[in-house]
């Protein structure tokens, strides 16, 4: 059972990172954390809670 208060978006490409963070921040999540998922592929993991 997943925590309903949290959401994690993986494999976010570099050129969509800003938009993805913006969408999460505008979706009532109070804390958004960005981590580098794959340095070579330049993808990110974003967790919102």
């Amino acid at each position: 059972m997943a925590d309903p208060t949290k959401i994690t978006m993986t494999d976010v490409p570099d050129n969509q990172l800003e938009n993805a963070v913006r969408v999460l921040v505008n979706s009532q999540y109070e804390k958004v954390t960005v981590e580098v998922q794959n340095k070579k592929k330049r993808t990110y993991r974003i967790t919102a809670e």
Partner: protein
Amino acid sequence: MGIRPGAAFPSYSFEFKRGGGLSLALPVQGVPVAMGLLGLDSAYGSITIKDGFTYGLSEDLMLDTVLDWAARNPRILKLYASTNNPPSYLRVVNRVFLAGEVSVFLTKARSGSVAGSAGLGRDTPLFDGSNSNAVQNYSNLLTQLGRLAESSGLPGGSLKIAAATTRSLSLHERFRRPLIIGYLAMEFPLLPDGGLGLPFSTLDALTKKKFKPSPGRVFSYDATDENTGRLMAWLSRKDAAGHYPNQEKLVEWLLRKKFQTQAVREVPLVAAAPEYRELRKQIVEELINRE
């Protein structure tokens, strides 16, 4: 009470010194009574839990029941939800363990204080085999000790002395009603909107065992769907006043189309998760292409 599911528990030992308090974990009245009968200042003892049994529901069944109830009663849960950190929790007990009887064995602690007690320092058997009435005498002694114990004021339950010497005493105590001595439970965080968060073990919470927080709902950004990038860019577009009106437009559209759950907290999933590819296509056609 019919056939009850049995439960067994390990026995445990304890040490008692007068004035030092008595921590037995269970409200066993027989221990202070026995201490009084033997006139002990300090003692070692052990307690064996007997007639143990358990009642409960499986975690699956309890989860279903609790979640059904919570879905019908968010207003009640909202009353108890904390708006600050740490959150409030709902503790749900799904199994209890009960004991009907305990056996207590007490023995005098060896210390310097008994050195001058004229022979009482040794463990003198009260059963004297050389006497022809030994069995009857010993039986009478135990009965008298039992009466003394009963008169010491044990509300409800019963005490029975099983064996006695000058240094030790063994007794059985039956509780008036079975005593709950343990439980299994889980903790549900109460969310501000009256919902329940992810449950975790009460044992972990009480023993402060670190548990790995759940990452929540995990989904991969659907980069192969060109509508993902279009929808993300559209949602992130700022108007002249510095607001993001398209996110509100999408929520209104989702509500109009009866996507209640998606409208409340799943906009990021609708925008980027592979499972919403069809819905995203519809959104792009109806909201973005018609602008």
